[in-house]
C-alpha cells in the first residue's frame, strides 16, 4: 500500500468538510475521487499534499506517517486545476525553479528540464511565457513540473476541467501514458463521472465529506450501494421509480426495452445520437429514460418492459442498497 488515509476528518469553523475518511491506493493504481462540488474531494487532495492539516486521522505515504511532515518533504507531484504556472517565468524557468530551490546543480537542472521538455514535446516552447501557450500545452507543462518532482504520489486536481470537451478526450490516453501507467499511486479528482470511469482503476464517490462507495467503475455501475451513487454513475441517468412499501426500485435506461405486451408509455422527447437513441417516456411510473438501438423504429406510443433481475433495490429510508 502506497497511500493510506486513516480516519481523516477535517472541518472549517464548525462545519465538517471531511468525515472519517479511509482510503488505500496501491502503487501504480489510479484512484479517481468523484463527487459533486463541495463534497470534499479537493480538500482530500490538499490534506494529502499537506496544504491543509486534518483535525483528525493520519496520512501514510509509502507506509510512513506523513501527517506532520511539511508539504515539500512529502514529495507529491501535484497538478492544480488552474495549473498554477508562474506567469512571469518562461516555461523552462517554471520547470527549473523547483530544482533550483532544492539545490540541484545548474548543469543537472538544464539536463532534466530539456529531457522532460522533449518527452512532453514542448521543446520549442521553452522560452515562451505560459500565457503564450494553449490550454493543452499549459497542462503538459504542469504535468512536466509534477514529473520533475520525482514524486512518491501524483495528485491531479481536475486536470482536464479547463480544456474543451474534444481536447479532453484527446488528452486522456496521453495523461494515462505519462502519469497513470507509472509505478506510483495517482489520485485523480474530478466531478465528471465519465472522465473518472475512463481514467481510473477504482473510483471513490464522495458525498458531503463521506465516502459513499469505493470500487472499480464496473462495480460502481453494476452494484451501486446507494441511490446517490446509482444516479451519479452512468449517463443517461438511472431511472428512480416511485416508492412502494418502503422500497425504491431503480432501472438503468438501457435495460428498458420496447415490447408488445408491457407497460403503456408515451414518447415525450427523443434524442438520436448515432451510437444509441435516448427516448424520454411518460408512463404510470412517471418519466422514464430509455436507451436503445438506433435502428429501432419507435412509435409515439408503445409498450415497454424490463427484466426484474436488472432492477436495483434501495431502502426508502436509508437510500442504501438492499441485496436482491
Amino acid at each position: 500500500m502506497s497511500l493510506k488515509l486513516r480516519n481523516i476528518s477535517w472541518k472549517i469553523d464548525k462545519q465538517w468538510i471531511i468525515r472519517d475518511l479511509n482510503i488505500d491506493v496501491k502503487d501504480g493504481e489510479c484512484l479517481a475521487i468523484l463527487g459533486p462540488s463541495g463534497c470534499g474531494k479537493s480538500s482530500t487532495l490538499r490534506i494529502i499534499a499537506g496544504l491543509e492539516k486534518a483535525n483528525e486521522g493520519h496520512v501514510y505515504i509509502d507506509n510512513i506517517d506523513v501527517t506532520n511532515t511539511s508539504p515539500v518533504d512529502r514529495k507529491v507531484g501535484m497538478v492544480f486545476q488552474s495549473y498554477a504556472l508562474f506567469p512571469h517565468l518562461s516555461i523552462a524557468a517554471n520547470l527549473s525553479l523547483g530544482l533550483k530551490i532544492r539545490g540541484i546543480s545548474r548543469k543537472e537542472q538544464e539536463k532534466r528540464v530539456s529531457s522532460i521538455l522533449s518527452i512532453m514535446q514542448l521543446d520549442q516552447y521553452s522560452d515562451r511565457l505560459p500565457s503564450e501557450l494553449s490550454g493543452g500545452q499549459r497542462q503538459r507543462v504542469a504535468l512536466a513540473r509534477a514529473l520533475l518532482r520525482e514524486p512518491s504520489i501524483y495528485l491531479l486536481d481536475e486536470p482536464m476541467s479547463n480544456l474543451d470537451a474534444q481536447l479532453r478526450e484527446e488528452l486522456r490516453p496521453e495523461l494515462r501514458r505519462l502519469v497513470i501507467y507509472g509505478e506510483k499511486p495517482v489520485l485523480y479528482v474530478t466531478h465528471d463521472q465519465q472522465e473518472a470511469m475512463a481514467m481510473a482503476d477504482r473510483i471513490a464517490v464522495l458525498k458531503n465529506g463521506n465516502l459513499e462507495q469505493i470500487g472499480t467503475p464496473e462495480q460502481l455501475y453494476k452494484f451501486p450501494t446507494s441511490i446517490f451513487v446509482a444516479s451519479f454513475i452512468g449517463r443517461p441517468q438511472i431511472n428512480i421509480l416511485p416508492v412502494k412499501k418502503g422500497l425504491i426500485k431503480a432501472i438503468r435506461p438501457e435495460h428498458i426495452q420496447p415490447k408488445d405486451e408491457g407497460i403503456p408509455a408515451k414518447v415525450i422527447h427523443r434524442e438520436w445520437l448515432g451510437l444509441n437513441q435516448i427516448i424520454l417516456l411518460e408512463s404510470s411510473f412517471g418519466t422514464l429514460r430509455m436507451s436503445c438501438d438506433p435502428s429501432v423504429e419507435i412509435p409515439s406510443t408503445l409498450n415497454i418492459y424490463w427484466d426484474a433481475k436488472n432492477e436495483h433495490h434501495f431502502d426508502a429510508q436509508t437510500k442504501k442498497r438492499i441485496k436482491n
Partner: protein
Amino acid sequence: MYPILLLPALILLFGVFGIPIVRYIWLSFHTSSVLTDLLPIPNNGANWIRLFSDSRFWQDAIQTFRFAISSVILEILIAISIAILLNQTFKNRGIVRTITLLPWALPTTIMALSWRWIFNTPYGPIEQILTLFHLNSINILSSPKIAWFATVIADVWKTTPFIALIILAGLQTIPEDLYEAFKLEGGNEFSAFQKITLPLLQPYIFLGLLFRFAQAFGVFDLIQIMTGGGPASTTESLSLYAYLNALRYLDFGYSSTIIIATFILMIIFSLFTWILIRQTKSLLSIR
C-alpha cells in the same frame, strides 16, 4: 471608424491643457509685471536667461526632487507592507481597510495644519515628549537641515494609503495556487515574496510610482501651510516659487517661465523613470 466622434473630447482636452500651456509658453517670452502695468511686452527671452542664472530656481528644483523622491520611495515601501497586512484574513478586515484609507480622504489643508501642530515648538506633542525625557529641543520646522524631512513625513502619512490601495488590488490578482505550488516545490515564504509577489506586483508598483511622482513634484498646498517654504527657503518647491513670483511679486512673465521649466523637468524625469522601469523589469525577471 468615425474619428470625428473624438472631436468633443479633443476640444475639451485642448481647452483645459492646450490653451494654458501655449499661453504660458507665450507669456514666458514676455515681461508682464507691475512695471508694465501687467501688459505683456516681448523681452527677447530675458526671462529664460534670468532663469538659468537664478540660483533660487535651481535650489528649489533640487529641493523638489529631494521631496518627491524621498516621499515616493518611503510611500512605496510602507504601502507594500500595509497592503500585505490588509491582504491577510482577519476579523473586521473591512473596517480596518476603511480606516487605513482615512488619511488620504482628509483635505490636505487640515492635515497639514495638524502636522504643523505636531512639529510645533515648544507646544507640539513631539517637543513635549522630548521634554518628558529631558532631551534637547529639536525645533523641527525652524531647522533648515530637517524641516524638509518633516514635510516628507506629512506627505507620506497622507498618500501612503493611496498606494497601499493600488498594491492591495495588485496582491488580489495573484492566485493563491501559485504560492501553494511554490510551497510544494520547497520554497519558503521569504523566497515566495521575492520570486512571486514582487515580480507580479511590479506593474502596480510602477503605476503608483509614476502617479505619485507626478503629484509630489507639483507639491504646493502642504508646504505652503506647513512651512510657507521656510526656513530660509529650504522647503520651497518649484510650484511655490512660481506662485510667489505671480502673486507676491506680480511678475507673471517670470512665473510662466518657471512653470514651463518645471513642466520640462517633469517630462525629462518621467522619461528617465520609464527607462529605469524597463531596465528593472528585465533585471527582476528570473530566467
